[in-house]
C-alpha cells in the first residue's frame, strides 16, 4: 500500500509544528523541576530589557540559557557581577522549551560563580530536599512556645554577641526567666558536631521549657554549621520548643526551617521567647480594676434587688389596704340595707316599750299602755285606747 503524504485525510494522524513543540515542552516541564547545573559560561549577552542570555557548556555539550530580568537584578543586588566569558558557574535552572524556535533551554534563577559557593549551595539544596521530604519543615510539626518561659536553654557561643543580646533582652522583658547557656562553637570544622552535642544536652536539663539556638551575623560560610544535616536533625529531636536565630534577617538557614519558630536575630529570639513583664503587669492591673468593678456592680445589683423587693412589699400592702376598704364598704352597704331605720324611711313606725323592747303582737298592747313610736325622724309617745 502506498502512502500519500499529501493526502488531506492524513491530517488526522499528523500534528503541526506548534503542537509538537508544545507537546515536547509539556513533557520537559513535567519531567524536570529546578536543578543545579554546573558548566562554563559563553556567549553571554545582557539585553536592554534586563534579561540575560548565555550558553552553558562542558567538554562535549552545551545548552542555551536565559535569566529573566527579575533574577538578573537579584544577582546584581547580591553584589555579584554578571558572569565573565569562560567562568565556571553553578546555575539553579529549570529545563524548558522555547516553542517559537523549537529550542531546548534552561531558565536560570540563580548563579553561583565560585566552586566553593557552588558546592555549598549544592549541599544546601541536597540537605534541604532530604529534610523536606522527611517532613522536618512541616508546619504541622511546629510546637507553640510556652506562654511564660521559665527555663531557657541557649545553645550558642559563650563569648558571642548573640548570647549578650539574648541575655539583655530577656533581662529587660522577663527577668522571671532563667537562662542556661549551653556553650558550643558556632563556626569552623568542629562546630556541627559540637552543636549536635549541645542540643542533645538540652534534653537533660531540668526545668528548661524552651531552647534558643543560633549565632550573630557573619559571612555566608560562617553560618554553614546551621545548614548541616546532623545539626538540623539534632534540632528537630529537641524535646522542648525551639527558636532558631542565625545571622541577620536576610540569612535563612536550614535550622530556621526546622525550628518551631524562626527569629530574625538573636535579640528577636529573646523577644519571641519571653513575655513582656510590663504588659503582663498591665494585664494584672486591668484584672484588678475589673475585679473591683465586678464586685461593685454585684453589690449595686443586690441593693437594687432589695429596693425592688421593698417596692413590691409596699405595693402588696397598698393592695391589701384597698381590698380591705372595699370589703368594709360593701359590708357597710349591706348593714345599711338591713337597718330598720331604712324601713322607717318608707313610712313604717316601730313601737317600743318602756324597756326599749320592740312591741310586735296584740298581746304587747294592753289598754292604756303608753309606748314609744319610732318614726323616721324621731320618737312619738302614744297610748293604747
Amino acid at each position, binding site marked *: 500500500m502506498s502512502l500519500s503524504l499529501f493526502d488531506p485525510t492524513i491530517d488526522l494522524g499528523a500534528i503541526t509544528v506548534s503542537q509538537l513543540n508544545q507537546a515536547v515542552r509539556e513533557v520537559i516541564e513535567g519531567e524536570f523541576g529546578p536543578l543545579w547545573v554546573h558548566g562554563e559560561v559563553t556567549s553571554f549577552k545582557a539585553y536592554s530589557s534586563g534579561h540575560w542570555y548565555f550558553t552553558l557548556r562542558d567538554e562535549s555539550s552545551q545548552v542555551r540559557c536565559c535569566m529573566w530580568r527579575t533574577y538578573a537584578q537579584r544577582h546584581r543586588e547580591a553584589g555579584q557581577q554578571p558572569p565573565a566569558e569562560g567562568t565556571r558557574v553553578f546555575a539553579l535552572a529549570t529545563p524548558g522549551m522555547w516553542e517559537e524556535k523549537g529550542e531546548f533551554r534552561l531558565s536560570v534563577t540563580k548563579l553561583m560563580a565560585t566552586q566553593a559557593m557552588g558546592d555549598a549551595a549544592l549541599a544546601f539544596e541536597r540537605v534541604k530536599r532530604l529534610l523536606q521530604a522527611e517532613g522536618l519543615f512541616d508546619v504541622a510539626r511546629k510546637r507553640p512556645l510556652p506562654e511564660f518561659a521559665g527555663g531557657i536553654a541557649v545553645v550558642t557561643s559563650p563569648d558571642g554577641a548573640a548570647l549578650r543580646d539574648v541575655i539583655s533582652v530577656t533581662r529587660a522583658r522577663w527577668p522571671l526567666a*532563667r537562662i542556661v547557656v549551653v556553650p558550643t562553637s558556632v563556626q569552623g570544622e568542629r562546630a556541627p558536631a559540637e552543636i549536635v552535642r549541645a542540643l542533645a544536652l538540652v534534653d537533660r536539663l531540668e526545668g528548661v521549657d524552651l531552647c534558643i539556638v543560633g549565632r550573630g551575623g557573619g559571612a555566608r560560610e560562617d553560618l554553614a554549621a546551621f545548614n548541616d544535616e546532623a545539626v538540623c536533625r539534632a534540632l528537630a529531636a529537641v524535646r522542648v520548643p525551639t527558636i532558631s536565630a542565625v545571622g541577620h534577617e536576610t540569612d535563612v538557614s536550614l535550622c530556621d526551617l526546622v525550628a518551631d519558630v524562626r527569629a530574625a536575630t538573636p535579640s528577636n529570639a529573646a523577644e519571641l521567647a519571653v513575655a513582656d513583664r510590663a504588659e503582663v503587669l498591665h494585664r494584672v492591673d486591668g484584672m484588678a480594676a475589673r*475585679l473591683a468593678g*465586678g464586685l461593685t456592680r454585684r453589690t449595686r445589683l443586690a441593693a437594687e434587688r432589695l429596693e425592688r423587693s421593698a417596692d413590691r412589699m409596699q405595693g402588696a400592702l397598698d393592695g391589701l389596704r384597698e381590698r380591705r376598704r372595699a370589703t368594709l364598704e360593701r359590708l357597710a352597704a349591706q348593714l345599711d340595707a338591713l337597718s330598720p331605720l331604712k324601713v322607717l324611711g318608707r313610712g313604717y313606725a316601730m313601737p317600743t316599750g318602756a324597756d326599749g323592747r320592740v312591741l310586735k303582737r296584740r298581746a304587747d298592747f294592753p289598754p292604756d299602755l303608753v309606748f314609744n313610736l319610732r318614726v323616721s325622724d324621731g320618737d312619738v309617745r302614744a297610748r293604747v285606747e
Partner: protein
Amino acid sequence: MPKRPSTAGTAAAEAAAEAPTLADELRRLEEIVRLLEADDMDLDAALALFEEGVRRLQRARHTLEAAELKVQTVLEEAGGSLRLVDLDA
C-alpha cells in the same frame, strides 16, 4: 566568668516551676473576673471570689515585680553528669 556552683535540679527547678504557677494564677484570675462580671451569683459567693481574686492578684504582682534574671551555664563533669554554674552576666 563562672561563679558560685549550685546544684542543678532543686533550687533551679523550683525557680523554673514559678512561671507555670503564674500562668495558672492569671488563668484563674481571668475566670474569677468573668464570674464576677456575670449576673447570676449571690453576694456571698461574689465576696468570696473577690477575696480570692485579691489574694491571687497580690501574689501575681509580687512574682512579677520581685524577679531577677538568673543566668547559668552548664558544665559536663568527667562522669557525664551535668553541673550548673551561675554566670555574672
